[in-house]
């Protein structure tokens, strides 16, 4: 892709609710569309299930493990995620981005950056490379197999999804740091590579990604107007 002139990076210090996290991503997509702002955001969650945009609520209610979790709907597609011991990123690119006819390339770009950083820390992750389709896809995103998944010791530790709107792209994905007690069968990086150093992971992953996609970057925060839009978005839900 042609590098963006500038990216703002936001690293959130503490876990937030699902409603807050998804409202922020929606507002950042709007900022990309209306103001041409590209943002890479890192965040974490209070334990929450998120549904893919087209998933039915009943899919959540049918699984007793998920039914009692707070839940939220993502703007993006794919299956249900249980956000617990997870580091999540969102990347919003404005309509001027150069991936208009090949937006799926963004999956590869971001995931390869994350794979390289994890590998440098001793957790040798790689893209899955092949998609395995099932007639009836599992409800959980991490039980599905897509070529862009990041895989560690044969287990999926990162999956991403997109929302495309008016030429802009919101891509977000969850990096599984450790298994959640809700879904203990989905192992995270610490389970698969005990002792791996995950200190300041968002900072180093962020640096790797922004260097790949932008000419310049800076750490920032939401603007006052964006914060107001987030509150309005949550209130409207």
């Amino acid at each position: 892709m042609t590098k963006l002139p500038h990216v703002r990076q936001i690293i959130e210090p503490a876990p937030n609710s699902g409603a807050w996290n998804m409202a922020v991503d929606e507002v950042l997509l709007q900022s990309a569309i209306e103001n041409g702002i590209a943002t890479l955001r890192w965040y974490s969650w209070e334990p929450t299930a998120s549904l893919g945009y087209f998933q039915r609520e009943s899919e959540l209610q049918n699984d007793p493990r998920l039914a009692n979790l707070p839940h939220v709907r993502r703007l993006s597609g794919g299956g249900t995620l249980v956000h617990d011991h997870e580091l999540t990123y969102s990347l919003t690119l404005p309509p001027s981005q150069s991936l208009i006819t090949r937006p799926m390339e963004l999956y590869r770009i971001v995931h390869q950056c994350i794979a390289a950083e994890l590998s440098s820390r001793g957790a040798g992750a790689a893209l899955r490379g092949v998609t395995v389709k099932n007639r009836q896809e599992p409800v959980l995103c991490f039980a599905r197999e897509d070529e862009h998944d990041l895989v560690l010791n044969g287990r999926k530790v990162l999956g991403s999804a997109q929302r495309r709107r008016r030429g802009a792209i919101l891509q977000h994905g969850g990096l599984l740091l450790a298994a959640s007690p809700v879904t203990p069968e989905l192992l995270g990086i610490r389970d698969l590579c005990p002792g791996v150093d995950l200190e300041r992971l968002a900072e180093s992953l962020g640096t790797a990604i922004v260097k790949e996609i932008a000419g310049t970057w800076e750490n920032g925060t939401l603007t006052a107007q964006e914060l107001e839009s987030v509150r309005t978005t949550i209130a409207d839900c």
Partner: protein
Amino acid sequence: MDPASLKFTKTHEWVAVEGDVATIGISDFAVHLLSDLVYADLPPIGKKITQGEPFGEVESVKAVSDLYAPVSGEVIGRNDALPDNLDLLTTSPFGGGWMVKVRLSNAGELSSLLSQTAYKAHCDAEKH
């Protein structure tokens, strides 16, 4: 439908007009870009749609994309076979893959749409 007789948008929707009714779908170029569609959500009969605003949504490869109305009007027909048979978009994007029929509220909007030749040039430019 013969694509040469259609009008197009830069966001890859097509329109066929017969009297005051417009049939709307998405182009083969759009279907190729989206690839591997798994969901389509189309507006109900009676819904009023506005040129340039979203009228539906599709999901492909975990990506949800908006569909933009090429013309304004009221939805008077919907291809209910489509959501359960999205292959129609691949096999017949300008025929069996049609999405909605709309009674035009402003036929003047048609003049803002692209001919097939102009649309192809737009697609070529987007690819580079």
